[in-house]
């Protein structure tokens, strides 16, 4: 329902003008009710984005801090409901051909870009073929099968696929495959386009101003195609490098929203006792991530399955969860995040490592692998590369050193700056154990394919298969699952894949990560779907 704020004002004035107390008080009650569930037009929402993005070129750079701003401006063909089913957005309807090799989208009438140009199928074609497929870091994976986009008329776009790509229907939101305006980019150097940091899209908010080091201001799009929306006049994305100051900004009401765990986990307990604030773990259902240990199978004795399994047994994930992650998340059971349960791809029917007698099993496996304890109680020594993306990873590394010492593995921690760390691990492969944090994308295709396919052993490419896992049977299953159109058959294939991985144990899966949003209770309807902070705040409104 579209709410007209003028009505409210008139009724309030009328009520005050009336001398009858009865009428006045009933009107007050009405106003209070209205406050709680009736959206109000206007206001400026301040959200904290951490850290400040280096660019707003959402179509060429993937970093978790860009979408909270960019998805206010760029929209996708569809959005997703809480069950992660596609819902109409820039496309009003779609049809997948029976052979799965084309998808026909009917596009919405009356949509205009912020520069006044109408949105047509040519924009879809240009965005997919000329920008995303060529310059986006992850989209080429999503669009691997896309051979072209047909535009029979202005409001019809047909994606042509070499093979069925069932996962594509999961990645059409503005976060993953945004639609840009063809006339802005055509004939220019895409990566040098001036709209990189002054984005032009079809979304509910227009780019206003970027004061480097301070904030990005977004202004209400008066011509937004959803009538009456958005409610807010402005969104200010503020950048506050210091964690304590970020928390203080929320506590004082200076900022209304902080998503993607911009607030230190350690501060959340205190935030929860603040009556003006609330937290939610919703809105991250399509942002699965796992913290893991990568084991370099080229370095003995990590080439032995028993040794890798022993490491998996030796770690108490509940300690990491409690003391490093402050209780946010879940112990990981296998290679896929449990968030894939919603779509039926996750299974915990795999080789289990969190068992009561895990230390005995670990010791037995290591004994069996011919690695007896030496005089100092240690069997062998290894280096652990400390993740340089934040201090919590050093805490985790310190715990891991203690945990593995119990079963006789002597870890030496090595902490280097980000560039040196990534080069050592992904280019020089000069590591034993690495502790990265892996995003898994919207479909198992991304997380599993890039991490475990033998073809993804790519020297110099970060966050791909660096553990040298190569299993032809497994590769066959993943490649089949990638093209299988029947959802249930895909689920069976992915279940089998997870079971093989959990048994072979090329990685040790630690924590199924849970992000948290902190918000002021005056801010309503901010998290309206599974993409949460990475979709537009068109329905968000502020109590006055």
């Amino acid at each position: 329902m579209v709410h007209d704020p003028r009505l409210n004002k008139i009724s309030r004035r009328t009520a005050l003008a009336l001398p009858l107390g009865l009428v006045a008080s009933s009107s007050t009650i009405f106003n209070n009710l209205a406050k709680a569930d009736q959206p109000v037009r206007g206001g400026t929402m301040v959200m904290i984005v951490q850290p400040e993005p280096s660019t707003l070129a959402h179509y060429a750079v993937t970093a978790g801090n860009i979408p909270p701003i960019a998805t206010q401006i760029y929209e996708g063909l569809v959005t997703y409901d809480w069950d992660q089913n596609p819902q109409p957005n820039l496309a009003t309807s779609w049809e997948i051909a029976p052979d799965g090799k084309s998808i026909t989208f009917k596009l919405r009438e009356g949509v205009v870009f912020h520069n006044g140009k109408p949105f047509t199928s040519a924009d879809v074609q240009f965005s997919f073929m000329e920008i995303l497929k060529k310059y986006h870091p992850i989209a080429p994976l999503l669009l691997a099968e896309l051979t072209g986009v047909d535009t029979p008329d202005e409001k019809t776009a047909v994606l042509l696929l070499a093979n069925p790509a069932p996962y594509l229907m999961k990645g059409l939101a503005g976060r993953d495959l945004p639609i840009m305006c063809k006339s802005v980019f055509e004939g220019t150097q895409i990566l040098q386009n001036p709209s990189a940091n002054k984005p032009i899209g079809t979304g509910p908010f227009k780019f206003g101003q970027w004061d480097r080091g301070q904030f990005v201001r977004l202004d209400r799009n008066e011509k937004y195609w959803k009538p009456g929306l958005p409610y807010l006049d402005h969104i200010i994305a503020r950048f506050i490098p210091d964690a304590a100051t970020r928390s203080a900004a929320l506590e004082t009401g200076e900022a209304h929203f902080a998503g993607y765990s911009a607030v230190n986990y350690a501060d959340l307990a205190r935030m929860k006792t603040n009556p003006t604030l609330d937290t939610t773990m919703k809105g991250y259902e399509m942002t699965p991530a796992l913290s893991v240990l990568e084991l370099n199978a080229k370095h003995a004795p990590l080439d032995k399955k028993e040794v890798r399994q022993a490491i998996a047994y030796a770690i108490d994930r509940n300690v990491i969860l409690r003391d490093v992650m402050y209780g946010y998340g879940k112990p990981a059971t296998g290679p896929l995040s449990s968030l894939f349960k919603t779509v039926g791809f996750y299974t915990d029917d795999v080789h289990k490592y969190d068992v009561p007698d895990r230390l005995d099993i670990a010791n037995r496996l290591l004994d069996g692998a011919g690695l007896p304890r030496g005089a100092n109680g240690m069997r062998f020594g290894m280096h652990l590369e400390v993740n340089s993306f934040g201090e919590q990873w050093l805490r985790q590394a310190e715990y891991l050193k203690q945990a593995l010492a119990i079963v006789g593995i002597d870890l030496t921690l090595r902490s280097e700056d980000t560039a040196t760390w990534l080069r050592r691990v992904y280019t020089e492969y000069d590591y034993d154990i690495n502790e990265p944090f892996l995003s898994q994308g919207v479909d198992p295709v991304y997380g599993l394919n890039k991490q475990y396919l033998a073809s993804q052993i790519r020297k110099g490419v970060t966050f791909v298969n660096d553990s040298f896992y190569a299993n032809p049977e497994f590769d066959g299953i993943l490649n089949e699952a990638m093209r299988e159109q029947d959802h249930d058959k895909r689920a069976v294939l992915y279940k089998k894949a997870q079971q093989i991985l959990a048994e072979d144990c090329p990685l040790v899966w630690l924590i199924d990560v849970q992000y948290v949003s902190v918000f002021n209770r005056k801010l309503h309807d901010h998290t309206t779907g599974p993409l949460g902070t990475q979709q537009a705040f068109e329905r968000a409104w502020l109590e006055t």
Partner: protein
Amino acid sequence: MWQGVARFARNRMALFGAAVLGCLLLLVVLTPVIYPDNPFKLAGPALQPPGGRFLLGTDTLGRDVAAEIAYGARTSLLIGVGATLAAIVFGAVLGGIAGYYRGRTETVLMRLTEFFQTIPAFIFALLIVAILSPSVSSEIIAIAAVSWPSIARLVRGEFVALGGREFVQACAGLGASDARIILNHMLPNCASSIIAVGSLLIGTAILLEAGLAFLGLGDPNVMSWGLIISAGRAVLRSAWWICTFPGIAILLTVLGINLIGDGLNEALNPRLRER
């Protein structure tokens, strides 16, 4: 010599400093007895306040803060003394050569020294540790590398002053080698100044080490005060004890060493003797 000790003992502040340092050394010696376990060991529940089973509480991973501080003292002293010794040896050699030979050698060496002196010490140390990859030895190298110029300038100044004195010229006249003159006659005569400045350098080195560890550039396998503070910073408002106690340890240690340095300076510096 005994005169010097007596003069030092008359200085109450210096005695206080010596007492603090004495306690610290005692702690370092007794640490393996009091806390036989590795300081990284998860000793109990996380974030226990001080006073219970754990004298100074536990940190975010449930490690005993008191044990961490005790082991951190060893690291701080090791790196503080190690880096200072390295800086003194290197600085004294360079400054000595420059001050003894003078001329073009001096010009080149002293411009080099000044060049190093103009680089901001902490940032230069950060850079060196980042390049060498964090470890105890790279921290010692980095801190020594930013500390030697002051020693070099001091020694050069003393050598220039001593060079014209009769006893030095007499040695040269008797045919003593350069090495003999420098090591047996000149160095002992500026030892008091080196000791005074060097003792102050230890304090600076300990502060630098804590700063490096705080920024995550300490050796991750060795407990240090900076590391404890950096780990406790996130929970400063809910668990004050994690940052506070190592902070007090750094404060007392650096203060104590500085007071000793001042005391030594007064006791050994002839110009201050009569005050």
